[in-house]
């Protein structure tokens, strides 16, 4: 019975992806993409990876969907003003067929063969993780791998997030802050919901962060939920990005700052880079994760709020030099 569930789920995933690619209307493609994110979360559940399902639901269906809808809204807002033809139909020319077909078929055959002739693995990492989980300071293997065994990857990955937001800030012309955003319409129902949903979101975010050390959860999923809460506030009309601007730089880099200082300060005791002192691994990891959650929340939110306004005058040379 569960194999039938998996087969149908896989086919649905494929169907949704086909829907995204073949849809002429851009908005339909984006909504199909949101459905794809949700189905992918279910696939991760079936692959026995609840952490990834949590991350995919929070980041994939939640944030990426909102970013895509915002982008399509930006496109359709300007297109409708410029010319009255239906904005979302894709009239752009297509590229010649030979490269896509070759790459598609070639990749498919190559990967099928790679799966078919896969040799038996000689090194088993899961056993190693199980043997060393005791000293890692956390019970949940994935958090142990992320923040202890391969913590250097996570450090670089936070740097990747930080670079993305630095570039977003660099591309935002200073003139844009001063231009007054139109006051969002006051919507009683939405404000009511935000007032009740926000505490629940923050609570769940902290719960997911706390749960990270002994069951699926952790800094990234918690951060994504915090970001979703901030995006919710921004959409409901509270100009969160204006308040956030003041403590933005510190908040963004806080997680990375804490992670780096901990990573370096342990070296003073003669231990190699990124080695947690024996007794304190658990507490240190949780402290780093808490700071990371805050930073990831702010970073993902500013990746949403640093976008250009929809009504940006299209076509004229943006006045980027603010002297």
């Amino acid at each position: 019975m569960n194999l039938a569930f998996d087969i149908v789920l896989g086919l649905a995933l494929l169907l949704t992806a086909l829907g995204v690619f073949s849809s002429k209307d851009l908005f339909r493609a984006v909504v199909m993409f949101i459905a794809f994110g949700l189905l992918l979360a279910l696939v991760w559940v079936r692959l026995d990876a609840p952490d990834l399902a949590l991350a995919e639901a929070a980041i994939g269906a939640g944030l990426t969907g909102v970013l895509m809808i915002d982008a399509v809204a930006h496109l359709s807002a300007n297109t409708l003003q410029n010319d009255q033809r239906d904005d979302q139909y894709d009239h752009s020319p297509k590229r010649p067929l030979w490269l896509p077909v070759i790459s598609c078929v070639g990749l498919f055959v190559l990967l099928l063969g790679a799966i078919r002739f896969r040799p038996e693995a000689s090194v088993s990492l899961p056993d190693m993780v199980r043997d060393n989980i005791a000293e890692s300071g956390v019970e949940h293997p994935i958090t142990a791998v992320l923040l202890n065994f391969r913590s250097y990857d996570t450090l670089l990955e936070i740097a990747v997030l930080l670079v993305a937001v630095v570039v977003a800030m660099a591309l935002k012309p200073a003139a844009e802050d001063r231009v007054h955003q139109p006051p969002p319409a006051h919507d009683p129902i939405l404000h009511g919901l935000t007032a009740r949903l926000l505490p629940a979101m923050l609570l769940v975010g902290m719960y997911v962060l706390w749960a990270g050390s002994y069951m699926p959860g952790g800094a990234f999923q918690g951060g994504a939920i915090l970001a979703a809460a901030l995006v919710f506030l921004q959409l409901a009309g509270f100009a969160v990005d204006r308040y956030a601007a003041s403590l933005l730089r510190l908040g963004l880099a806080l997680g990375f700052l804490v992670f780096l200082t901990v990573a370096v300060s342990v070296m003073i005791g003669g231990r190699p880079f990124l080695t947690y002192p024996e007794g304190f691994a658990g507490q240190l990891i949780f402290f780093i994760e808490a700071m990371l959650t805050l930073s990831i929340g702010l970073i993902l939110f500013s990746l949403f709020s640093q976008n250009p306004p929809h009504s940006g005058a299209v076509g004229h040379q943006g006045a980027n030099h603010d002297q």
Partner: protein
Amino acid sequence: MIEAHTAWYLASFVLLLTLIAGLLRIWHGPNPADRMLAAQLFGTTGVGILLTLAQAMQMPALNDVALVLALLATIAMVAFVKRMSPQQGPTKSQPEDQP
């Protein structure tokens, strides 16, 4: 009597089929609002599937996933309503494949 977890799988399988049926509305939905409605449906049905799977696979962690999904299901809808409409005046109803 079939044992418990196949029953739960059956329930989740039925819900999955309704989810896939929802895809049709996304595909044919004449206007963006209908598509977003289907996306909203996906959120609720997704929570349902996750809850039944949590029982079927004996994984309590899936309840957290369902909780997160329940919270985030509406954010796409709010983004659609708030960001898709402010600039446009009353747009003509979509001319394409009106059923």
